[in-house]
């Protein structure tokens, strides 16, 4: 049985593999402890330990991302680091694998598109009325904290910044993006 500090280290090590951002980058966000606590609260401690046990570096460890039991949790951890959002785990999964069962509000209605911003379920009812930022039992998916949003890796991955934070400066938008570590087929900015 490992202690909490050890668990946090293992969580960050797994997260570094899963996100392709270095452990230094992840520690630098200041979010590691908060994310670990979120995962433990939302999914449970045992399944997290199972995941960290199964996820060994290398191709074999990659299987956790497609695993029926561990996959949804592994993928949620990736999304958490990239966006700062804890996404609701599938209710069937939660029921089957013993995660805490929560009252989940129904989706509002079909055909809802084009909400400026993004496509998470709406949370403006009781959540905002009470002025609470985090009420898991009431809100299926939520932003873990204001800081979690601004530390999302998503924007760093594309050479940008979260909208509304970490602004790059006047006129920076006029030159090609600098995308660290991008080895795709389009080169580093500019035209082919």
């Amino acid at each position, binding site marked *: 049985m490992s202690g909490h500090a050890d668990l946090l280290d293992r969580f960050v090590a797994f997260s570094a593999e899963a996100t392709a951002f270095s452990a230094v980058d992840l520690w630098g966000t200041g979010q590691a402890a908060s994310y670990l606590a979120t995962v433990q609260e939302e999914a449970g401690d045992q399944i997290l330990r199972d995941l960290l046990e199964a996820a060994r570096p290398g191709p074999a460890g990659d299987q956790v991302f497609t695993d029926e039991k561990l996959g949804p949790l592994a993928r949620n951890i990736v999304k958490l680091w990239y966006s700062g959002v804890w996404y609701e785990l599938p209710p069937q999964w939660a029921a089957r694998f013993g995660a805490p069962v929560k009252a989940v509000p129904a989706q509002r209605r079909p055909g809802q598109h084009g909400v*400026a911003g993004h496509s998470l379920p709406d949370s403006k009812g009781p959540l905002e009325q009470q002025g609470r930022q985090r009420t898991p039992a009431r809100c299926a998916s939520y932003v873990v904290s204001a800081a979690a949003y601004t530390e999302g890796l998503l924007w760093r991955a594309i050479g940008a910044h979260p909208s509304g934070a970490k602004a790059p400066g006047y006129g920076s*938008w006029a030159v090609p993006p600098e995308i660290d570590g991008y080895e795709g087929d389009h080169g580093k*900015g500019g035209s082919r």
Partner: protein
Amino acid sequence: MAFDIDSSAIFPIGAATRTTPQIAARKSYDVVIVGGGVSGSILADQLSQAGHSAVIVEAGPGKDVQLDEYEAYLSRFYAASVKDNQAPYPFNPNARMPRSADAMPVTPQTPDDQYYIVQDGPFCTDTTFTRVLGGTTMHWEGKALRMLPEDFDTASRFGHGRDWPLGYDDIEPYYRQAEQELGVSADVEDQRYLGMTFPPGYVYPMRKMPLSYLDQVVARGVDGMRVDLDGDRYDLRIRSFPQARNGVPNPDYDGGKGYQPIGAISTYQVEEGKRCQGNNNCVPICPVQAKYHAGKTLAKALRTGKVDIVTQAVASRVHVDKESGRISGIEYKRYQDPSSPEHTTHTVHGRVYVLAANAIENARLMLASGLPSTSDLVGRNLMDHAYLLRWALLPEIAGTFRGTNCTGGITELRGGRFRERQAGFAVDIHNDGWGWATGSPYSDLLAIVDGQRKHGRDLRAALVSQLSRQLLLAFMIEVAPEPANRVTVDRRYRDPLGNLKPVISFRVPEYSLAGASFGFDLAGQIFTRLGAEDHTTYDPRDYSYVEYAGRGYSIRGGNHLAGTHVMGKTRHDSVTDPAQRSWDHENLFLVGGGSMPTIGTSNITLTLAALAYRSASFIDTQLRTEKAPAVISAR
């Protein structure tokens, strides 16, 4: 009153709270203003500088405008799970704000008559406005286009819309005044098209914002593209938009005096916001206040010491003296706590009354007060720009998701003879990618992680490929006034304070849909020239889905609300005169987008700000010349 340029961002301590409803009720003001947004703030500023006293009745909450309060808006935005254009602003049932996700049909049988705007159809608009101190300029994007000269007489010229009682040349000096107050960044050389003129030597306060790298990539395909339409030839090019956002001051401004940008507002000196930092978050909130908001003008007005504000005060009734037709008071409901409907009712009195609460709220208040006007046009001719979105993936990395929300686009097709058949439009290139259409970048993250099961390096490469190549073209399409498009009230629909809610009946005119159809095809041609892969889909289940000439489109609202108290030449065919003065009530001014007979292809704020400056001079004159004492009710 002159003030030190260094203190121009200072909000006077206690100014927002020094007046109580009881104190305000005992006074007789020169001017009573409903609404603390851009129009109300400009009028309060201009009239108080001219020596008149004023009170602003504001529905939303408001203490002194402080940096920490503004930053609380920002934190709320960061933590909000739906980052729409109202996300930063607190939920307040007593002055409820429409939200874009609220667009759904509401009938008396609808169990959840839960939203603020009651949609009577057939089209469901997702239009919004913001009910906090500063109004919708808190969330606006900041585009500051002038209207074209041909926009002022479209009925005579093209057989669509209504003619203004004013022309471009009448408004041009006020455009310059508005450009100074709002702090517009643009180059005159870029804006001299389709007949727009500027006095010799005029420069905008600040130089144009640089085009984004994305704009430059798109320009490689668009610049030089030729469109022939109804005998007119257009050579398209990507052009920068004028923006009410602090950029590099132009030293030639004001005859060589230059321009001092106004940054963040607070009761203490804040060194922030004097230049845009590229936060890519103009909507719903500029983190540093480099974007203009009405709080900047309001602070100036309050520094005169002649302006009072009562906040958390929702105007509920306009009182009229039956004999004279003059307004005798504005009744409002004041709540202490946004989460409780408990309130007290008060009335404020003045010599002149100004409704400056936006086109929907001005009409709602007039109709709730039983004042449809001689012309029966209060609430009618509701307009908002119709937005058509089309989106694609470019063949190369274009650095999407950087810059201000929008820096450039296509403006040639705003005007021309084709407007006899179809609406004009301006085209925005969205630096924030497909977000408005699809929920990017979150929707892409989910698709790649959960759908494609990618993680690690593959995930990072997929994100770059999927996000940094996004191109979204937004066609902002002219909507002409139609009397049947309207705001009404219905006694079955009330807010928690008991105020009647706005009921909206709207259909997108065929004229606009003809423009949308042309825009859809033009976007396709642009995508082909760029080698971009089209990803546009419209969902027929969408409440804002419309069919036209065999194709379906989702039409979005622009939140550019106008037309509900049009100005004109006589009391029989308009609600206000060219000064925005009510034909029926000589001491009542209805100001804002509601007075605009048409909206052309300009975001309305610059024009309604110019109209507010113009009205200020008429109100000043009226206050100085009018001998009649204020009518004070016995209450």
